[in-house]
């Protein structure tokens, strides 16, 4: 069973519907046991880093996530779930889970025509081949909604990059059994579904 971690940060309907579409059974859960025993874990989320981290610390889910990553379960972060597996976020000056080393930084567009949040479809340049990119063309576009972007410290952990508001940021990251996307694969049409499917077949 694939567990989608529920920590009251946004709407998980579309993640579940995306997995339903590709025929992958999943459960939306906040149960530590269910998450720790799941075959795979997706950590989504929309919202602010500070309140998300407070919930995750108060409920103990932050430690559950560290354990899941340490025990080798294939793990995927999406959007806010990606940002808060880094060490720190500028948003609310929040200390985060720290599966990946690095910071999360606010867009400061030099051109005011680049609106913040970035909303819409932007392309991903593949920096390192990885099983989650299987069958996905270089430059494919995915759906983004975010005001902050990941800045991982270790260059080898950057799998894909995207340009916006004068920066080239890490839109896909990976380390061992962990992958993370700043965009929403579950809202990114058939190519997004392909990436989700790749994750569900990935054996790190």
């Amino acid at each position: 069973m694939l567990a989608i971690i529920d920590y009251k940060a946004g709407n998980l309907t579309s993640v579940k519907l995306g997995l339903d579409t590709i025929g992958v059974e999943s459960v939306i859960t906040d149960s530590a046991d269910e998450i720790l025993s799941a075959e795979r874990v997706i950590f989504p989320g929309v919202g602010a880093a500070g309140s998300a981290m407070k919930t995750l610390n108060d409920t103990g889910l932050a430690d559950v996530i560290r354990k899941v990553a340490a025990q080798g379960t294939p793990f995927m972060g999406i959007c806010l779930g990606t940002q808060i597996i880094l060490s720190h976020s500028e948003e609310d000056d929040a200390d985060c889970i720290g599966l990946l080393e690095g910071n999360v930084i606010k867009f400061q567009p030099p051109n005011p025509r680049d609106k913040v949040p970035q909303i819409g479809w932007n392309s991903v340049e593949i920096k390192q081949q990885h099983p989650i990119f299987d069958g996905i063309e270089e430059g494919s576009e995915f759906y983004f909604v975010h005001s902050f972007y990941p800045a991982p410290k270790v260059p080898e952990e950057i799998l894909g990059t995207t340009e916006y508001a004068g920066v080239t940021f890490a839109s896909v990251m990976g380390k061992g059994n962990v992958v993370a996307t700043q965009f929403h694969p579950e809202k990114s049409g058939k190519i997004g579904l392909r990436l989700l499917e790749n994750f569900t077949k990935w054996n790190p």
Partner: protein
Amino acid sequence: MLTRRIIPCLDIHGKRVTKGVKFKNNVDLGDPVEMAAKYYDEGCDELVFYDITASAERRPIDIDMVREVAKAVRIPFAVGGGISSVEDMSRALLAGAEKVSVNSLAVVNPQIIADGANAFGAQCIVLGMDPVAAPDKEKFPSGYEITTRGFREHTGMDALEWAKRAVDLGVGEIVVNSVDADGTREGFEIHLTKMIAENVSVPVVASGGAGCSAHLAEVFEKAHADAAIIAGMIHTGEFTIPQIKQELIEAGIPIRKHW
């Protein structure tokens, strides 16, 4: 590079998609879920559904339809019409909508914008506005007045002031639907769209008047719209989404190429 979004708009009237000119003479065009699935397959970037009789009939938006659309497409979609409370917003978002759009009700009760943004995040809350050209520069410094209830009521509110206030209240996006251009298929109202787009910090979606690809190219290039709504030009079958995308790519507009 962030691409410009092409958003088919489906006006829902009694569980069917309809199209009228200036909210009048609506004709039946088909089933909303089937049309959504078709446009999704053809590569549209997003969809918007307006339940155009919900407000008048004082009923909430058709949640069953929202749920069916959410099963059929894997791209974001917004719903509007009949959203009168945070509870209505919550139901639509949990049914699978990415965003909810408020229009007339936000004019009457602007607080709903702030309440919605606090509850779900600004990115979920869209303001739809229906400005009409208003020559009285003293009353309407921007030259446009906000109308509501399907253009039937004049509010006395200046369009640009309302847009700025809505952003302060927390909307994440503004759909500027020109009353004068709506349904004409003679092009977007560039002056109006540009003025709003250049004066607010959130993305602006141009609406009303799309009749061919060149109209979209014009509103993206000259008015700096982040997205554009199309309706009649594709609903009638005169244009297809792949054709529009190809023509915009040839015109040098950043458009999503993989789907």
